[in-house]
């Protein structure tokens, strides 16, 4: 039982901290958001130089064999800095699916491209009707000779307008919400029949609606077993939730620190507002919410790759509930304590608040995951 980082992990943490300290001042972030795709390609290249983009992949594939803790370290700093680059979409989601489900040939070709920053991936999974049900896949894939033909409309594809390749879920068999019958396919964004409509999300990041009409892919494009890819989707979404939990903790910690600093400098009635007990207690409540969230993000990290699926899912869902609730509380209070200035686009807390709001909604909000924990019989055996 240990919560400390190894020396190597501390070095990683330090170098990511440094990267963002040097390059992610509030004004710089504004500029990155204006660039095509809504993030900085130049900084993405710096991520690659630091080895962040190849972090979770096997050494044999051209990565550095980092685990969930390394991902947590990067994501927490991304959350602190409110970084806009598509790390979750490319490395955690897309890269994760390749890592666990991609063929050797696919990994040999693509992992080096991810690690070098040349390949941006997006996971095209959610659909208009699916809400938070991961098994609700209406897009279809039918066998056609040696390959597949994919038809369907995917929604809220994170960084879908920057991706050069999609990993698309599509159903080969079964009813619309069956866990069986789902396949995953690697599809080139430039392939015939793919159309993409990108848009900004409320947190200043990007997503896309992507439609696939009669898109042909070869048999070798399948990731995992066609028709039996659902457990893989669940595994990767669990890892993405653990990563998002770490990002949320970074954002919450930054909001809390900024708010406490503001309380020490902002004066009203001739005194700093931090001298008011009502606000001191609010800041204490925020810290408690933060520490509880941090604890659960650590739990999610340590359980993200657990072999026991039930234990893993319960822990991940529990973490998502805590992250959602703590994020909402800390975000709302950060805005409240900042007062009018917190209501503007000119303060970072406003943007952090929007990011934690987004994170709660991604892959199931607190209520959704509370339902999963409850239906699963809770965390303590009766």
């Amino acid at each position, binding site marked *: 039982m240990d919560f400390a980082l190894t020396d190597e992990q501390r070095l990683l943490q330090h170098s990511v901290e440094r990267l963002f300290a040097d390059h992610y001042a509030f004004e710089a972030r504004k500029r990155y958001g204006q660039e095509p795709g809504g993030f900085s390609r130049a900084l993405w290249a710096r991520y690659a130089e630091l080895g962040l983009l190849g972090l979770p992949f096997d050494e044999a594939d051209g990565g550095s064999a980092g685990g969930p803790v390394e991902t947590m370290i990067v994501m927490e700093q991304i959350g602190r800095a409110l970084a806009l680059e598509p790390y979750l979409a490319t490395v955690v989601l897309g890269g994760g699916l390749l890592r666990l489900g991609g063929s050797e040939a696919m990994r040999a070709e693509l992992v080096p491209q991810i690690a070098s920053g040349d390949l941006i991936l997006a996971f095209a999974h959610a659909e208009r009707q699916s809400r938070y049900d991961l098994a609700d896949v209406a897009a279809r894939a039918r066998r056609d000779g040696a390959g597949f033909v994919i038809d369907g409309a995917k929604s809220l594809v994170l960084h879908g307008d920057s991706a050069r390749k999609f990993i698309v879920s599509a159903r080969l068999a079964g009813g619309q919400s069956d866990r069986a019958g789902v396949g995953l396919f690697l599809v080139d964004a430039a392939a015939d029949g793919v159309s993409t409509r990108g848009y900004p999300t409320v947190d200043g990041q990007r997503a896309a609606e992507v439609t696939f009409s009669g898109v042909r892919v070869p048999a070798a494009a399948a990731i995992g077993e066609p028709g039996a890819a659902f457990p893989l989707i669940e595994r990767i979404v669990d890892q993405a939730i653990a990563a998002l939990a770490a990002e949320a903790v970074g954002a919450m910690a930054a909001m809390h620190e900024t708010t406490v600093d503001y309380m020490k400098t902002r004066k009203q009635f001739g005194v700093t507002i931090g001298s008011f007990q009502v606000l*001191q207690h609010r800041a*204490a409540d925020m810290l408690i919410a933060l520490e509880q*969230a941090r604890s659960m993000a650590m739990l999610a990290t340590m359980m993200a790759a657990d072999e026991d699926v039930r234990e893993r899912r319960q*822990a991940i869902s*529990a973490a998502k509930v805590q992250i959602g609730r703590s994020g909402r509380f800390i975000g709302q209070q950060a805005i409240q304590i900042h007062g009018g200035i917190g209501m503007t686009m000119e303060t970072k807390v406003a943007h952090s608040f929007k990011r934690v709001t987004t994170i709660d909604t991604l892959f199931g909000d607190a209520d959704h995951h509370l339902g999963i924990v409850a239906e699963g019989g809770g965390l*303590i055996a*009766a």
Partner: protein
Amino acid sequence: MDLRFTPEEIAFRDEVRAFMKEKLPPAIRTKMIDGSRLGKEDLVTWQRILNAKGWAVPHWPKQWGGTGWGPVEIYLFRDELQQAPAPEPLPFGANMVGPVIIAFGNETQKKRYLPRIANLDDWWAQGFSEPGAGSDLASLRTTARRDGNHYIVNGQKTWTTLAQYADWIFCLVRTEPAAKKQEGISFLLIDMKTPGITVRPIQTIDGGYEVNEVFFDDVKVPAENLVGEENKGWNYAKFLLGNERSGIARVGISKSRIRRLKELAALERSAGKSLLTDPRFRAKIAAVEIELKALEMTQLRVVAAERNRSGSNKPDPASSILKIKGSEIQQTITELLLEVVGPYALPDQVPHDDSERWNEPPIGPDWAGPLAPQYFNYRKTSIYGGSNEIQKNIIAKAILGL
């Protein structure tokens, strides 16, 4: 980062678990599960079983009966004890005055008091709070005037838990009336049989008699019963209160109570179905389980940090977080246990003290009786040990620098 305990730690946990299973008297265990009040005999019996094993005061130095366990073993022991569920050793001796005597007392005091605390030969009470000194403890007014080889004590203590059973009481008393608030306070050990002491029980909100007023009227206390130096008592009290907070998350107890909650929710029926299958009730249970899991992880982080610091006994300001969250969770669980029996929370059918006996058959389900009293009683958890508002003051000051 790794959640797993070492094989040695797991073996240790299993040993503790097996001991609890074998040695905890079934009658005491049943009372713990039911949420019934424990009598003095229950606590003395259990404490002596622990002491015979050498586990009564594990956190003390070995010389005085401690086990030499590290923070992880202490944590595992406490967690297993709470989940058994077994009573925790009476805190006033083992966790409060014992460590103060060890840290600040003289050799004679250590030899005289410590073995009797470990075996619960002496039942100790805590004489801190006064009618005018609650959270603002330093405004206490009980005086001790030096008179030759004695102190003459006059004043009143209140909220004195289980003082009706006490052989001894440790008191904060004012020895230097002219000094500033925190100065001029001393830490005095007083034999409850001394003439001039009167104990008046206070009936609490749950109907029980857990706390008392203790009056001191020209009580003659030998000067040798002073702990440490005269007028330095406030330092000893701060040390004691820091210790008090560190064990206060009570995660093991909450786990055990959640098991009970689920067991009863499975038995109780609402609209023809088990309450445990009711989505709204189930979601409420899940919500508190998640809070508890987060608290358990937070506690483990504190334990691991303590282990890695090794040696420093300074209370971690994070213990205020454990106190606040731990008390809130315990209270939430008692709310749900109250709700689980619905209208059968209403009959007042639990004896209010040791002398009363309820010989009638139960009204409603067997398990309903103690649940409402326990709900009312547990409001104390956010008040005692430094109220949760005081804990937030500590967080604001010590952690946030506000």
